């Protein structure tokens, strides 16, 4: 069965820390995505990648960066965590432009 794995289910970090959220997919998908989900706001796209070392900004990229050194791994980086980045972070991958997305289980990040 195809799988997208997010390294942590729950994470607590301090303000100002550099935070890495890892996502790995085993489907050889080209496209990978990071969303954040907040109550009342739904899912918002942070960054996505359509190939190794390629990245595109989504709707809310401020305060985040990403890294895709290998096809199967897409990392989201919070350069200096702030309390307003407390959220649920969801990683997804997709084979082609019209195909469905497969999501990881999510990482609930709390910044204190």
């Amino acid at each position, binding site marked *: 069965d195809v799988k997208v794995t997010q390294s942590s289910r729950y994470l607590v970090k301090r303000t100002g820390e550099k935070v890495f959220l890892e996502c790995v997919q085993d489907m050889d998908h080209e496209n990978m995505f990071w969303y954040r989900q907040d109550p009342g*706001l739904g*899912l918002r*796209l942070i960054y996505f990648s359509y190939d190794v070392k390629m990245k595109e900004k989504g709707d809310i990229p401020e305060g985040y960066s990403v890294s895709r050194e290998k096809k199967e791994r897409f990392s989201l980086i919070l350069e200096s965590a702030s309390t307003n980045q407390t959220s649920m972070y969801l990683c997804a991958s997709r084979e082609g432009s019209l195909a469905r997305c497969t999501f990881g289980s999510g990482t609930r990040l709390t910044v204190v």
Partner: protein
Amino acid sequence: SQQGEEDPQALSIQEGENATMNCSYKTSINNLQWYRQNSGRGLVHLILIRSNEREKHSGRLRVTLDTSKKSSSLLITASRAADTASYFCAALNQAGTALIFGKGTTLSVSS
């Protein structure tokens, strides 16, 4: 840049009843997708309907698409307590590069 907007925001029904959720979107689409999310978990793909299709079925799910009205509906028939979840519609952004999701409909099915 929200592409889909679900309606209603919340829906409470009894087991055995049907649940209907609606989605309106803004731009032209190649397909529209519906996802389900159990509390605190990732999203699971339910069904995809292409722009040249008007209706699609999958088990107890029925999806309709009206491209002239830029709207879609998801019908869950004979609902069960296990259907309790949030449901999202999604369509590609204008650049065609990423799925943009609505805010979702929270469905609660009580036994």
